[in-house]
C-alpha cells in the first residue's frame, strides 16, 4: 500500500522556541500508526499542524500525494483529516448534537434549521458510531468525562474520510473496546489513524507501526511486532529505563490521618487510615468518588458528614490553606496540573516558594535570587534541575511542571501528601524522580495517599492499596497480594467478575 500521509522535515518554531525540529514519517492507508514520545517530544505540535491549528515553518506534508497545508481545523476537515484532541474541545453549555456538528450546526446559513431536525441528524451520527447511552439533546456539561471523551472521538470519527488523529483518546475512557471497534471499522474503509497514547499495551493492541519522536525530531519508524518495550523506551528517552524499585517494608508508624464515616460528593461512608511511613494507593475506575475524596482531604471540598482526624484531632479542613496549617500538615497536588496547579506567568522558583508565602509570614521583601535559593532544596528533592528555577513555569514541559508542583507540596513542610495521579502524562525520567521522591518522603516519617489511573504504578509504589467502588471501599489489598488483576477485579465491584481487561500495564 502506498503512503496516505507523507511528512517531510516538518518544523515549527514559536519565536526563539523550537517545538518541532524535523519530523519525517509516513502513514499508509488503512493503517493505525502510533506516535510515541515523552512529553515535550513534539507530539502535540505535530497533531496541531496536521489538523490545521498551527502552520509549520518548514517542511512538507503530502496527503494522497497532494500538498496538505490546512489553514484551519475546518480546512483540514475538508481534506478529510479530523482530530480528537487530548484537552477535549467541547463547548460545555451546548448540546451533544450541536457539539457534534460544530461549526456548521445549522444547514441554512442565514436561516436556522429546526431543532428537531438537528437532533435527528445528530442522532444518526451517534447511532452510526454505536453510541446508545447518550441523548443528542443532553448538555455536555451534564455528562461525565468518559462520555464527553466519546463525543469528542465521535465527532472526529464522523469527519474522518482520510486520516483520523487521536491524541490520548483513552485518557478518560474506562474501556477501549468501543474505540477499537470503531477504529477497525474506519480502517477497513481505508482511512488511516494516527494514534497517540502513553499506554504501550493499547498501542500494541491496535497499532501496526509506530514513529518515535524525541526532542521534536522523528527518531525512527518501527514495526511494533519487531521491537520490545525496552527498545521503544530506549528510543523515546535516549537511554534504558531505570531498574524497577526495591520493595518497601510495611509501615507501622503513628496514625497521621484518619477518616470516619466520611461522606462527600460520591463518597459514602469511607473509613481510611494513613500511617507515617506508608504509601497508600487508591485504585478505582473513573467516577467512583476518588476526586471527591482527594479534594475533601486536600481541603478543596467541604465534606457532607463524617470526621476527618488529622494528627489525632478532628479537623474541619475548610480550605486548602487550613489543611496545610493543620498539624502535621496536609499538602494536596490536584488532578488538573494546568488548571488548578501552576501559575504559568510566574517562575518555577516563585511557584515553589508560594507554599511559604501561603502558610507563614515571610520576610518583607523577596527577589528572584532569594526565591531561587529558598526553592533550591525542595527542587532538589524532586530532581528538578536548578537552572529551571528562573524560568516561567508556563514554558516548562509537563513533567517539569509536575515536579514544580510536588516541590511546592514538599515546601509546605506537610507530613501528609495527597497526590492525585502525580505521574500522569509525564515522561519516564520524571516518573522515576517522582517515585524516588515519594519513597524518600515516607522514609522520613511522612505518609502519602495517591491515586493513579495506571495499575502498574499502584502495584509498584503502594505499601497497601485501597480500592474504591461506588463511593465505598470495595477492597483493601496488602503489599503481599497486590497484583494488577486483583486490583482490577476489586475495582469492578465486590460481587462481579471482571469483564474484558480494561487497562493493563506494559
Amino acid at each position, binding site marked *: 500500500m502506498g503512503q496516505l500521509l507523507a511528512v517531510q522535515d516538518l518544523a515549527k518554531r514559536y519565536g526563539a522556541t523550537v517545538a518541532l*525540529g524535523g519530523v519525517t514519517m509516513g502513514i499508509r492507508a488503512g493503517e493505525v500508526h502510533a506516535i510515541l514520545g515523552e512529553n515535550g517530544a513534539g507530539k502535540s505540535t505535530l497533531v496541531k499542524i496536521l489538523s490545521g491549528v498551527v502552520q509549520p515553518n518548514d517542511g512538507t506534508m503530502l496527503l494522497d500525494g497532494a500538498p496538505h497545508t490546512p489553514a484551519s481545523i475546518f480546512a483540514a476537515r475538508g481534506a478529510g483529516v479530523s482530530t480528537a484532541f487530548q484537552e477535549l474541545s467541547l463547548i460545555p453549555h451546548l448540546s451533544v448534537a450541536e457539539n457534534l456538528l460544530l461549526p456548521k450546526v445549522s444547514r441554512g446559513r442565514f436561516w436556522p434549521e429546526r431543532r428537531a431536525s438537528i437532533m435527528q441528524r445528530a442522532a444518526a451520527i451517534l447511532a452510526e458510531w454505536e453510541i446508545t447511552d447518550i441523548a443528542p439533546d443532553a448538555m455536555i456539561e451534564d455528562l461525565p468525562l468518559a462520555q464527553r471523551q466519546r463525543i469528542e472521538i465521535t465527532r472526529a470519527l464522523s469527519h474522518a474520510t482520510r486520516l483520523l488523529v487521536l491524541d490520548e483518546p483513552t485518557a478518560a475512557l474506562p474501556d477501549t473496546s468501543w474505540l477499537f471497534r470503531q477504529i477497525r471499522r474506519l480502517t477497513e474503509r481505508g482511512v488511516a489513524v494516527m494514534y497517540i497514547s502513553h499506554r504501550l499495551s493499547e498501542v500494541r493492541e491496535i497499532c501496526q507501526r509506530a514513529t518515535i519522536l524525541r526532542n521534536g525530531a522523528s527518531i525512527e519508524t518501527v514495526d511494533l511486532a519487531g521491537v520490545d518495550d525496552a527498545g521503544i523506551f530506549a528510543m523515546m528517552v535516549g537511554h534504558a529505563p531505570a531498574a524497577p524499585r526495591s520493595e518497601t517494608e510495611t509501615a507501622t508508624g503513628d496514625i497521621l490521618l484518619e477518616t470516619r464515616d466520611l461522606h462527600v460528593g460520591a463518597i459514602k461512608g469511607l473509613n481510611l487510615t494513613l500511617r507515617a511511613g506508608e504509601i497508600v494507593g487508591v485504585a478505582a475506575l473513573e467516577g467512583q468518588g476518588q476526586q471527591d475524596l482527594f479534594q475533601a482531604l486536600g481541603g478543596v471540598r467541604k465534606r457532607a458528614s463524617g470526621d476527618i482526624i488529622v494528627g489525632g484531632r478532628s479537623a474541619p479542613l475548610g480550605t*486548602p490553606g487550613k489543611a496545610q496549617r493543620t498539624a502535621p500538615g496536609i499538602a494536596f497536588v490536584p488532578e488538573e496540573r494546568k488548571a488548578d496547579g501552576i501559575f504559568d506567568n510566574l517562575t518555577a522558583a*516563585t511557584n515553589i516558594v508560594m507554599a511559604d508565602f501561603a502558610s507563614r509570614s515571610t520576610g518583607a521583601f523577596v527577589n528572584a535570587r532569594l526565591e531561587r535559593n529558598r526553592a533550591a532544596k525542595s527542587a532538589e528533592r524532586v530532581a528538578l534541575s536548578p537552572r529551571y528555577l528562573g*524560568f516561567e513555569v508556563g514554558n516548562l514541559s509537563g513533567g517539569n511542571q509536575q515536579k514544580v508542583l510536588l516541590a511546592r507540596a514538599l515546601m509546605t513542610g506537610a507530613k501528609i501528601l495527597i497526590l492525585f495521579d502525580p505521574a500522569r502524562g509525564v515522561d519516564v525520567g520524571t516518573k522515576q524522580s517522582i517515585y524516588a521522591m515519594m519513597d524518600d518522603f515516607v522514609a522520613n516519617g511522612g505518609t502519602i495517599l495517591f491515586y493513579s489511573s495506571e495499575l502498574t504504578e499502584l502495584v509498584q509504589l503502594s505499601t497497601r492499596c485501597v480500592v474504591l467502588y461506588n463511593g465505598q471501599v470495595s477492597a483493601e489489598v496488602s503489599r503481599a497480594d497486590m497484583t494488577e488483576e486483583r486490583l482490577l477485579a476489586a475495582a469492578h465491584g465486590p460481587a462481579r467478575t471482571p469483564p474484558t481487561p480494561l487497562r493493563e500495564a506494559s
Partner: protein
Amino acid sequence: MSDQTAIPLEDTRKAQRISPTVVTVATIYGIVALMIVASRLVSPSFGGLSQLETILYLSSFLVFCAFGQGLVILVRGLDLSIASVITVGGVLSAALMDGSNAGLFYVIPAILLACALIGVVNGIGVTVFNVPPFIMTMAVGIIVYSLCLGFTGGTPRGFPAPVLNDFMGSRFIGIPAPVWLLIAFAAMGTLVQSFSPFGRKLTAVGNNPEAAYVAGLPSRRLTVSVYAISAACAGFTGILLASYANGATLRMGDDYLLPSIAAVVVGGSSILGGKGTFLGTVGGAMLLTTLATILSALGIGQGWKTIMEGAVILLALILLRDTVFDSLRAVLVRKD
C-alpha cells in the same frame, strides 16, 4: 539521576535572556523620553527639566490611584468606583479638616480608613457574592456618589488643612514636594507589587485563581484587601487633589477613572490579570500626561487633539504587544 538526557528540547530553547517585563517597562519610558524630546518641536520651552517636573507633578495624582487600580487588575478585577471614592476623599478632607491643621494626624487616617471600607464592600461583593467586578464597583460607585451628593447637599464645604495646601506648593531641594511623594510612592509600590510576598501572592491569584486556592492562598482575603487598598489609594488621591485645588468638588474623580485603567494597560499589565508592574503603570501615567501637555500646547482644534490622544494610546498598545516583543527577542537571541 541523569536529568540532562531527559530534558525536552523546548525547555532550553525557551530560555529568555531578556525578561519581557524589562522590555515592556523600558519601551514605555523610551516612548515617554522620545515624546519629551520631540515636544521641543511644539514649544521651545519644552524638552527640558521643567517640563519633566510638570509632567511628574501632574501625573502624580493619576499614579496614586492607578496603583490601586493596577493591583485590582492584577487579581483579574476592575475598580470603577475610584472616581466616587476620590470624591469621598476630597469631600471628607475638606469637610473634616475645615481649613485647620489641628487633628490632621487622625483625620487623614480616618478618611483613608473610611475609603478602605468602601473597598472592602467592593471586595466582599466580588469574592463572597461573586458579583462581576465591573458591576459591583460600578454600582458601589453610584451608591457612594449618591451618598456624597446627599451628604453635601450638592456643595462640598470647607477647606483642606492649609499645611497640605502649602505642601502641594512647596519644594525640597528644588523639586516640588509632590514629585518627591511620587518617587517615594513609586518605589514603595514597586516593592509591594514586584518584590514582596504579598505582590507575589496577588500575581498568583490573578494568574490562576483556582490554583491559588488549591495552593492554600487566602484568595478571598487577598482580593478584598486589594480592593481596600485601591479605595484607600483613591481616597489618598482625593485628599491630595483637594489640597492641590484647595477645596473639593463632586466631580473631581471623574477625570481619573478611565485614565487609571489606561495607565495600567498602557503600562504593560494584562487586563486579564496576573501580569504587570507598577513601574510600567507609572510610565503609562507619565505617557498619558506627557501627551496631554503636548496636545495642550498644540494649536489645533479639540477634535484633532482628541483624535491624536486616542491614536497615541492605540499606537502605544500596538508597540507593547507581546508579538512585537517576541519578534524583538527573537532577533536579539538570534544575534548571539
